[in-house]
């Protein structure tokens, strides 16, 4: 019997290493016809900002080879709406419910984190300092060591539970950014958010996305994500949560071997809404087949 439990620290204990990535799984409710949420380590709900945001105009999506670009732009109804309306509906899900928190000013992050801190059934926040689709967006904080140190240390002062920081791949040295997050009080880092990209309709000579650029996700980003997880895991001591193009259990195992302690499934949820459950099962099966007693033992088990 394989032990699938993952302890990410500061009270965030997962039943298994599989979580669903923010922005790809709604509030979990959208998927309950397909997924038994109690079979997942956690779900990370849609990126939420202190104030409501309408997001970017349509079109917000362009399909690419083995992936997609999006420029949704953090459409959400704000932290207070989440607390009043959504939280009561999802707080008793039999899995960890994490909230992805984004902002455009330091004050927004701090105020939002303070409000979420008061919610008993939210064991962790994933701090989004890496959304590429918002003009004065989180990514401004996430692409420099000074920016990330500032936002993480200020949020740390008011947020007392597990603080996960989601990193942008759109940087020159992601390990340095991760180290800055760690030094500022992050309990874990998750990576990667989407890669900035662009798509053009040649026939119309127009961009395919309303705001021209967007974030690339899906199977095509996996090699980049895997490399970055490996680099970051070597650099930091806090747990690393790996994501980026994971579509099956083998992909997930690769991220663990590269140094991730847990993983998130994102865009693959769009193609197979039940994929998260299958990945959790498949990782267990891998461990049985390879004689690992604990899934946690896969972390960093890459033989080089």
């Amino acid at each position: 019997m394989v032990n699938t439990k993952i302890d990410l620290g500061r009270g965030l204990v997962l039943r298994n290493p599989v979580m669903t990535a923010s922005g790809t799984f709604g509030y979990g409710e959208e998927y309950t016809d397909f997924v038994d949420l109690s079979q997942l380590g956690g779900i990370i709900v849609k990126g939420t900002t202190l104030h409501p945001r309408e997001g970017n105009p349509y079109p917000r999506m362009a399909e690419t080879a083995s992936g997609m670009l999006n420029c949704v732009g953090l459409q959400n109804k704000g932290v207070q709406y989440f607390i009043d309306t959504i939280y009561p509906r999802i707080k008793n899900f039999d899995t960890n419910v994490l909230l992805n928190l984004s902002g455009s000013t330091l004050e927004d992050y701090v105020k939002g984190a303070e409000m979420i801190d008061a919610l008993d059934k939210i064991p962790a926040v994933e701090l989004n300092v890496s959304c590429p689709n918002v003009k004065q967006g989180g990514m401004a904080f996430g692409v420099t060591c000074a920016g990330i140190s500032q936002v993480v240390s200020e949020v740390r002062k008011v947020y007392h539970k597990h603080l996960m920081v989601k990193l942008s791949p759109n940087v020159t040295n992601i390990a340095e950014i991760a180290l800055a997050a760690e030094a500022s009080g992050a309990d874990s880092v998750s990576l990667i958010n989407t890669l900035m990209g662009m798509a053009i309709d040649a026939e119309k000579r127009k961009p395919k996305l309303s705001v021209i650029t967007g974030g690339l996700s899906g199977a095509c980003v996996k090699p980049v994500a895997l490399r970055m997880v490996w680099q970051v895991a070597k650099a930091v001591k806090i747990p690393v949560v790996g994501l980026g193009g994971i579509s099956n259990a083998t992909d997930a195992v690769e991220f663990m071997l590269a140094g991730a302690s847990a993983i998130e499934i994102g865009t693959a949820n769009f193609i197979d809404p039940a994929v998260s459950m299958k990945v959790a099962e498949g990782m267990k099966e891998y461990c049985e087949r390879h004689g690992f007693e604990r899934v946690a033992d896969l972390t960093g088990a890459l033989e080089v």
Partner: protein
Amino acid sequence: MAKQIADFKLIAKEDYGRSVLLRLRSEQPLPDIAPGQFVQVRVDGSPTTYLRRPISIHDVDFQQNEISLLVQQVGEGTRHLAQTETGTYLNMMLPLGNGFTIPEKREKVLLVGGGIGIAPLYYFAKVLVEKGIRPTLLLGGKSESDLIRLADYQQFGDTFVTTEDGSIGEKGFVTQHSIWQKQGFGKIYVCGPKPMMKAVAKLAAEMGVWCEVSLENLMACGLGACLCCVEDTIDGHVCVCKEGPVFNTRRLKW
């Protein structure tokens, strides 16, 4: 109503040039399906097609666990679907979105379809007839070849036709058909290209007639999770896949 994900066997294909009718059978009983709802079909074996393709439900046969899709080849994904060999399986998520509002029995109903937008109106007209409502149909296309299964549509009610080249029916757009001068309607339902739907919606608004349209914005998840397929409404950006694809035109910022 629970959604399901299932493999459907392609049991028959009918070729209509640019479009193809796919008849698909499931091994398990179908869920309830309202006219206007859609499926998300996985496109296997096409390297450039990553996401599922949303396709409206053209017809349903609950006895046989069968669904029919009318697929127009507009890009690589739909071309691949159209080329699916009989006997192979397509993986589908269904039923998605909300269907058309079922009218009162005494109401005079007009269904307006343009191009491949006629597809969901087949099942809708069939359900209306089952409920004792005989709809009037107004179908438009560029030319006669766009009016797929015209004779089959005609069984459901008085059917009027326009084509841009005049190859069949009155020449012009659906909004130019003489029926608008001759008859009044209590409810108008529209599915077709966006400019055509906007034109019909405008006409309906001018006449003060209730109107629903079925949108087909680009989408990824089909479940209301990714927020890619939004339409601008009086309630802000809402997902076409979850709150639509059918909308009352009063709700849209058109």
